[in-house]
């Protein structure tokens, strides 16, 4: 019984999943293989911009291999793709199906609410991890031929792990609202707010005098604040991402177990 809910969750979303996978692969491959074409040129353009703006856009080091990857593949595009996938999936997992009436049937079966939430969360984590494997595979295959060989495989693995954790964290927080309230709009809305705030708090907001420290509250900072491509895994970043996720998912599950199911 347990396995069938998990399997079904993944199977039901398979068409959309193909599209997401396609997006992840295309972004990874296109950015990586354009290094020779645009890397150097863009580096030069950005060299004229103020240091703070470059930093906000994550482009202070566009010309170096790690700097290039950090501001393209591991810049905003994949972070947004992973977050968006997590947000949409976590919203549908409970609130979406609940509002469409589908959950009524499922929860009248011998399925516990806790298992339903946890398995759907697990399915989401598995898919995000799969995305991560694809990213690592694409980069490892391409980095030599396109001249990004200077970036260590361990750096790529660390950055990807933190990227996956960013997605998982976004999904976990969204699942808290999705399972805790059963309201689809609220779940999507709060998920988007978390992502947008997280991004801004790690890019533009710290430029404002006096609130530079705000970035420490941003999942995006936990994800790439330590420049994992160069420095490897950040224990504190990973712990924060995972910790927030665990708290959110546990809380969401408890709330879901306690409340009424809406139709």
């Amino acid at each position, binding site marked *: *019984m347990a396995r*069938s*809910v998990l399997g*079904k969750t993944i199977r*039901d979303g398979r068409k959309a999943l193909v599209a997401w996978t396609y997006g992840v692969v295309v972004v990874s491959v296109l950015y990586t293989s354009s290094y020779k074409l645009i890397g150097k040129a863009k580096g030069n353009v950005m060299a004229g911009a103020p240091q703070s703006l470059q930093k906000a856009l994550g482009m202070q080091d566009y010309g170096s291999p790690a700097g290039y990857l950090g501001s393209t593949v591991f810049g905003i595009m994949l972070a947004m793709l992973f977050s968006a996938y997590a947000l949409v999936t976590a919203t549908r997992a409970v609130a979406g199906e609940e509002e*469409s*009436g*589908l959950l*009524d*049937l*499922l*929860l*009248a*079966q*011998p*399925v*516990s609410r806790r298992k339903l939430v946890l398995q759907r969360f697990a399915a989401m984590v598995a898919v995000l991890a799969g995305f991560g494997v694809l990213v690592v595979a694409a980069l490892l295959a391409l980095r030599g031929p396109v001249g990004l060989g200077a970036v260590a495989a361990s750096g790529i693995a660390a950055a990807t792990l933190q990227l996956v954790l960013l997605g998982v964290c976004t999904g976990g927080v969204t699942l808290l609202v999705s399972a805790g309230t059963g309201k689809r709009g609220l779940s999507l809305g709060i998920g988007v707010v978390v992502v947008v705030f997280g991004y801004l708090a790690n890019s533009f907001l710290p430029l404002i005098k006096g609130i530079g420290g705000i970035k420490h509250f941003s999942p995006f900072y936990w994800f790439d604040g330590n420049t994992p491509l160069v420095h490897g895994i950040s224990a504190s970043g990973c712990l924060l991402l995972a910790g927030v996720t665990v708290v959110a998912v546990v809380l969401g599950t408890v709330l879901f177990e*306690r*409340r*009424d*199911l809406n*139709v």
Partner: protein
Amino acid sequence: MSGGEAAVLAEGLSKEYGGGRKRVRALDTLDLTVRRGEVFGYLGPNGAGKSTTIRMLLDLLRPTSGTVRVLGEEPRSGGPGLRRRVGYLAGDFVIEPRQTVGEALRFLAELRGGVPPMRIEGLAERLDLDLKRKVRQLSKGNRQKVGVVQAFMHRPELLILDEPTSGLDPLLQQEFLALVREAREDGRTVFMSSHIMSEVQAVADRVAVIREGRLLTVDTVDSLREHAVRHVAVRLDEGPEEVDAEAFARTPGVRDLEVRPAADAAGGSELRCTLDGRADGLVKALARYGVAALELEEPDLEEVFFTLYNHNGGRETGGVTGHGA
């Protein structure tokens, strides 16, 4: 199986929706016992609280106060183990549209720990349901059949059916009622809600009637039928002047009597009245005349409620008017 316990037991069961000003009391201190092995009808107009009650039995909703036991267990603590013994058809049955009927049913069967494929095929055949169609392509009635199959397929001890025949054509309603009878013959319990009196009368042993969240009565079908108001229209050979209207009006149970010339000017008359309770007096009074045609209209629910209110000491009569004796 814990044999001695009631299939469903509710004590002082109440449910409120929302909080603060928007608070709605959908169910008010309901006491109800459904015995094992009986077919129990749960009757009430729209918004009476039927689905609210049923969703609490499945642990989809939690009671605001009071207790409820299903097959001897509390729905929440009973959890998946309890729901394995129950079959449920929701009032608005929704199922994932992007799959075939067969896939959907096999998935649900798997969740229940397996159902012989023959059983699913047999039920589908009886209800004339095509297992290869996509759920998305099904008409409302056919989708309802999927709901019926999934509720019955694992032969649960207790069937909880919320307006199970909605959307089914008369032929399939009959087939459905046959399924219910078979379930009873097997010793299973059926708890079904409806707002159609006649459908419940056809299968139920006992009936509870609720309205505005309150239980009006629990009774056997026979006794409920006896209390029900029916509209009677009789075509007599004799003209109006030959009919002793007074005698009819004195007959026990006859109200709102009206005798007038028959519409087709063939010389006969037409007698209309409402009949409350036993038909005996009226039939004997009619025997003196030539009865060309007799029409008996089954009571609708509003009228059943009206009589119930009267028998219960004439509490508020809701929207029912024009039934003064």
